[in-house]
């Protein structure tokens, strides 16, 4: 195991300080952990009955994802990995919110969107919560 440590330290030293933030992962954070579960819970509770209902659910997710990204960004450079992790969700949910705002979101579209958002939220939550 000491070899692993030596390799890790040497790798960082050789490639310079600029790469440290790319190599070191972000660590456990109570607020991020709570928020990602809020997002996951909202994803699992999405209802597609009407466009108005869809809009309520989409807007709620947009706000939670925005909170997560702003908080992580404010916390500093070491949070870039979780920002990159949640960014694809931001696009998925923002596209949905835009459609609900113009009334162009069908029920079938919402059903598939829900499945995609659940896959994304489950995976993101797993990574955020399993950090050291």
């Amino acid at each position, binding site marked *: 195991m000491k070899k692993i440590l030596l390799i890790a330290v040497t790798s960082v030293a050789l490639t310079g300080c600029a790469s440290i933030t790319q190599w070191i992962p972000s660590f456990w954070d109570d607020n991020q952990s709570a928020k990602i579960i809020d997002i996951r819970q909202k994803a699992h509770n999405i209802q597609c009955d009407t466009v108005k209902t869809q809009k309520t659910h989409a807007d709620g997710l947009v706000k939670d994802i925005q909170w997560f990204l702003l908080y992580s960004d404010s916390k500093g450079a070491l949070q870039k990995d979780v920002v990159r992790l949640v960014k694809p969700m931001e696009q*998925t949910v923002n596209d949905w919110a835009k459609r609900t705002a113009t009334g162009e979101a069908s029920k079938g*579209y919402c059903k598939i*969107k829900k499945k995609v958002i659940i896959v994304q939220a489950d*995976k993101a939550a797993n990574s955020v919560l399993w950090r050291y």
Partner: protein
Amino acid sequence: MDELKNLLTCGAPWAEQRAKIAIELQEMFEDGEISESERNELLQDLINTDKLNDEADDINIKSALVAAISGVM
């Protein structure tokens, strides 16, 4: 569609899951349940999901490495 159906039994759970969603949305498009722009957006969502998946794997590996290093210090 045949290529997607082959992925349903490829043995990689994440790929099977994505293929299942892709087939379902293509069938819904053919049945007129979703529009072309909705289908295209949802396909883009599946591509974005792969990006998220890559980032998640990266974080998991780095976290495991940090935990392992901490164990020997």
